C-alpha cells in the first residue's frame, strides 16, 4: 500500500524534517565509526524528536554478538561520545528497543538479515523503506553491496538507499569500479557518498553567504580577487589509523575529497536552485574547469611533506616515521600544498592555494579570499604602512565565523591607516550548538535529499585531478620534504607561494 497524500498535521511545524519510517541497516556495526559517530547521531536525533515515530536500526558485522551485548556497547558509546550529556536513560531505553544485531559472516547471515528486515518492516510499518549504511573498511564495500543484491535485501516496496563512507576508491579506476558494482544494485540517485565536511553547518553557510547575499557575488571574480587560500590544518597526528593512513596519505585523505569540495563551493557558479541536481551540477562544472597538474608540473605546483619530531602545545611528539604502525622509511605525505587554477571566465588567472597537514601548530580549517589592493593610492606610503589588502575569511572549524579586514583611520591627529577586523561568529550570533554533521547527513539520507552528498561524476573529477599529481610524485618528480611537528609545514611550501610574491596566512 502506498499512501501519497501528505500529512495535513505537518504544515507549519518547525521540525519539518522528520523522515518516513524506515529501517537503517549498518554494516560495520561493531566498528569505531558506528560507536563514535553514527549511533550518537541517531540518539541525538531521537532526543530532538527528529526520528520517525517508528524506526528500526539493524546492526551487522561478521562477528557473533548477542543483541544485549550490542546494545550495551552502544549505550556506553553514546554515554561517552554523544555531544549532549549525560545520556538520557529514559530516551535511550526506548530507542535501544528498536536496535537489533544480525551477524553476517556468510551467506546464511545475509538470509537471516533478510528475514529480520521483513519482520521489522511489518512491525514498524516501514513499508519497505531501507537505508543501508556501509561503515566497514572499504575492501568490504563491494562484497556487501553484491550480497544486498543477491539476497534481495532491497524491500519489495518503498525506497532503498545506500550510504557509502569515505574513502570512495583510492584512484579514478577503483572509484569507477566501485560505482559500477554499486550500480548493479542501486540507481545513482539511491547512492549517498559521504563527505562529512558537507554536513558541517559552516560549509553549507558558504553557499548561504555567497548566494543569499547580493554584495559578495559581484566581487567574487578575478577582477576583484587576488587569490584564494584554503587551509585544513590539524594538530593531531595519525592517532590509531596508521594502517589506513600510511597507504593513503594527506592527498587521498583530505585533498581529494574535503579540500576539493571546499574549492568547488567557493569557486562554483550560482546554481539555479538549492537542490541536489542544481548544486551538484555546478560543483561538477567547476571541478571540470580545474586545471590539471600534469606529472611533469608537480615540482613547480605542488609540495609534499612529512612531519618529523617536534612540539605540539608544549608536548614533545614523535615524527611520522616513529609513529606505531608506520614503516620506518615511509614515503607517505602528511602535508600537501598546491597551487591551482580554475580555467573559466570567472577565475582565469586567479590562483587557488590549498594546503593541509597533520601536526601543524593548531587545528583550523578556513577559506581566505584575498582581494586586490585599491587600484589607486591616494594616501601616502607612510600613512598606509599598516594597511593590507581586504580579506574575507570564512572559518570552518573551530570557532566558525566570517571576518573581513579593511582599512580604517587610526584616531590620532594626522593620517594613519591600519587594517582592522570585522568579525562575525556564528557561535555568538546564534548561540546554539550546531548539530553534528552526521546528524545532518543521516537525516538527509533518510529523507532522500542528496544535496550534501557527492555524486558519481564529482568523485570521478576529484580523482581525475589527484591521480596525475600522485603519479608525478610516484615518478620522483617532487621530493618529500620534512617539517618539524608544530610548524606550519615545510619551507618549500613558503617558497611555493613566495614565488608569486605572496605569503600564507597565519590561521
Amino acid at each position: 500500500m502506498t499512501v501519497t497524500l501528505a500529512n495535513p498535521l505537518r504544515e507549519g511545524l518547525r521540525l519539518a524534517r522528520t523522515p518516513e519510517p524506515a529501517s537503517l541497516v549498518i554494516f560495520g556495526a561493531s566498528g569505531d565509526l558506528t560507536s563514535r559517530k553514527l549511533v550518537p547521531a541517531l540518539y541525538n536525533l531521537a532526543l530532538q524528536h527528529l526520528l520517525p515515530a517508528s524506526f528500526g536500526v539493524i546492526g551487522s558485522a561478521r562477528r557473533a554478538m548477542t543483541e544485549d551485548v550490542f546494545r550495551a556497547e552502544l549505550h556506553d558509546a553514546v554515554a561517552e561520545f554523544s555531544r549532549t550529556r549525560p545520556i538520557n536513560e529514559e530516551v535511550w531505553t526506548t530507542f535501544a528497543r528498536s536496535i537489533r544485531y544480525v551477524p553476517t559472516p556468510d551467506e546464511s547471515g545475509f538470509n537471516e538479515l533478510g528475514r529480520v528486515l521483513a519482520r521489522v518492516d511489518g512491525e514498524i510499518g516501514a513499508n519497505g523503506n531501507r537505508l543501508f549504511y556501509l561503515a566497514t573498511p572499504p575492501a568490504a564495500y563491494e562484497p556487501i553491496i553484491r550480497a544486498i543484491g543477491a539476497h534481495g535485501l532491497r524491500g519489495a516496496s518503498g525506497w532503498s538507499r545506500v550510504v557509502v563512507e569515505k574513502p570512495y576508491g583510492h584512484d579514478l579506476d577503483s572509484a569507477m569500479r566501485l560505482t559500477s558494482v554499486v550500480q548493479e544494485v542501486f540507481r545513482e540517485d539511491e547512492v549517498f557518498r559521504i563527505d562529512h565536511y558537507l554536513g558541517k553547518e559552516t560549509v553549507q553557510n558558504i553557499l548561504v553567504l555567497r548566494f543569499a547575499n547580493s554584495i559578495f557575488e559581484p566581487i567574487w571574480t578575478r577582477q576583484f580577487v587576488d587569490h584564494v587560500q584554503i587551509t585544513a590544518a590539524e594538530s593531531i597526528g595519525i592517532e590509531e589509523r596508521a594502517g589506513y593512513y600510511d597507504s593513503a596519505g594527506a592527498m587521498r585523505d583530505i585533498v581529494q575529497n574535503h579540500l576539493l569540495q571546499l574549492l568547488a563551493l567557493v569557486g562554483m557558479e550560482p546554481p539555479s536552485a538549492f537542490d541536489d541536481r542544481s548544486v551538484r551540477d555546478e560543483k561538477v562544472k567547476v571541478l571540470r574547469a580545474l586545471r590539471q597538474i600534469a606529472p611533469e608540473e608537480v615540482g613547480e605546483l605542488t609540495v609534499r611533506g612529512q612531519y618529523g619530531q617536534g612540539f605540539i602545545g608544549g608536548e614533545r611528539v614523535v615524527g611520522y616515521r616513529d609513529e606505531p604502525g608506520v614503516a620506518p622509511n615511509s614515503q607517505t605525505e602528511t602535508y600537501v600544498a598546491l597551487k591551482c587554477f580554475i580555467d573559466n571566465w570567472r577565475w582565469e588567472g586567479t590562483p587557488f592555494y590549498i594546503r593541509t597537514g597533520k601536526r601543524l601548530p593548531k587545528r583550523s580549517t578556513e577559506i581566505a579570499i584575498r582581494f586586490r589592493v585599491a587600484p589607486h593610492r591616494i594616501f601616502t606610503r607612510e600613512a598606509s604602512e599598516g594597511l593590507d589588502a581586504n580579506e574575507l575569511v570564512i572559518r570552518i572549524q573551530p570557532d566558525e565565523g566570517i571576518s573581513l579586514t579593511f582599512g580604517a583611520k587610526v584616531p590620532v591627529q594626522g593620517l594613519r591607516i591600519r587594517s582592522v577586523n570585522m568579525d562575525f561568529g556564528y557561535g555568538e550570533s546564534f548561540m546554539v550548538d550546531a548539530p553534528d554533521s552526521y546528524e545532518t547527513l543521516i537525516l538527509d539520507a533518510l529523507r532522500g535529499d542528496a544535496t550534501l552528498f557527492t555524486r558519481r561524476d564529482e568523485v570521478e573529477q576529484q580523482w581525475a585531478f589527484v591521480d596525475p599529481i600522485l603519479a608525478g610524485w610516484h615518478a620522483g618528480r617532487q621530493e618529500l620534504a620534512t617539517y618539524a611537528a608544530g610548524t606550519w609545514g615545510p619551507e618549500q611550501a613558503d617558497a611555493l607561494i613566495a614565488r608569486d610574491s605572496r605569503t600564507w596566512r597565519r590561521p
Partner: protein
Amino acid sequence: MTVMDEAFWGARAGSIDALERELGRLRRAAVAHAKERGQALARASVLNLVVYAEREIHARRAARAVADLALRHPSRAIIVLGDRSREGVLASLQLHCHVPQSDGAQPVLYEQILARVRGDFDERVASVVIPLLVPDLPVFLWWTGTPPSDARHVDDLVTLADRLIVDSADFARADLTLPEVARLARLRVGITDLNWARLTHWRELIAQFFDVPTWRPFLDGITGIRAGFAVDMDGRDIHPSQALLLLGWMASRLGWRPVEALAPSEAGGVLFKMARSDNAAVMVRLRPRFERGLDTGDVSGVRIQAALGRESAEFVIKRAPDQRHATATAVVGGVVRAERVVPLPALGIRELLVEELAIAGNDHVYEAALAALMALA
C-alpha cells in the same frame, strides 16, 4: 528607591543622548574587562526586543528572562515600564542602562535599557522607543499582560514591531482569552502566543504518528479526542485555553465542524461534539487534572481514538515516566505497534522566546486554529 533601582536597572541617565553616551562607555569597559581575561567580546546583535510592562514585577521578570535569552539571541532590550500608579503626576521619563557582564566561557555584549514612563504617557511612549532601536534589526515587541483593545500606545508600539509576542495564559480572564487573542489580529502584525508555543512539542509528536504511511489513513477515521490539562490542587483556576488551541489546531487541519457543546462536564471540563468532513461524529473531552509540577493550563496528555473499517487504533501521548518526558504509543488493532520516550523539556519563558524568535513570518496555522475555536464558541 533610586538606589535600589540602580542596583537592578543600572546607571541612570538624564536624556536619550546621555544614555547613548553611557552605553558607549559601558561597552568599552566590558570590552576592556573581557580583554583582561584574554577573551574577545562579540557585539553581534541580532534583534531589538521591546518589552512593555505595567507592573514592576513583570518588568523585572521580563528583564531576567531577556538577559538569559541574550545568551542565545544577543540583543538590545528596551524595557518600557508604564507606571500608571501615580495619577495626576506630570508625564516623566526615567532611563537606566546596563551592560551585564557574563562570566561564561563566551562573553556576550547585551544591552538593556529601562525606560520608566509615568503619568499620562500614552502619546509619548513611542517617541522614547524609536531613537533607542538598533537600526536594521528586527523589532520584537513583547507585551506582558493583556494588551488593551483600544489604546494609542498599543497601536504606536505595534507599528514599530515586526512581531508581537503575547502570552494568552497570562490574560486576566481565562474565558475571554481566546477572543482577546483573536482581536489582536486587527493589529496587522505577526502574533506569537507563547501559549501556542507551549504546544509545539505536542503537535510535533501527534503529527509524527501520521507520518507513518500505514497509520495516516486513521486521520480520516478519528472518532474521539481526550486531552487533559493541569489545574491547581483545589481546581479553582481552570484555564483550558491551551487544550482548546490544540483542539482548534486538529479541527482546522482536518476540516472538522463544531456541532454542539454538550454542557460543561465534571469539574470544569469541556465536552464537545464535532463533525468530520464525512459528517461522522468526533467526541471531544477536555478534562482538568491536578498534576504536580505543571503550570496551570499545561496539557498533560492526549488520546486520539480512530477507526478504519473494522480496525481500531489509539494514539496516546502521556507525560511519562515523568513530567519531563513524553511517552508516545501507537496501538493498532489492539497491539502496541510503537512506543517511545522523548524528552519534553520544561518550557520557561526563555525557551519559549528562543523558539519564537527563531522564526520571523506569520503563523497561519495558529491563525486557523484560533479561527476554528472562534467558530466553536
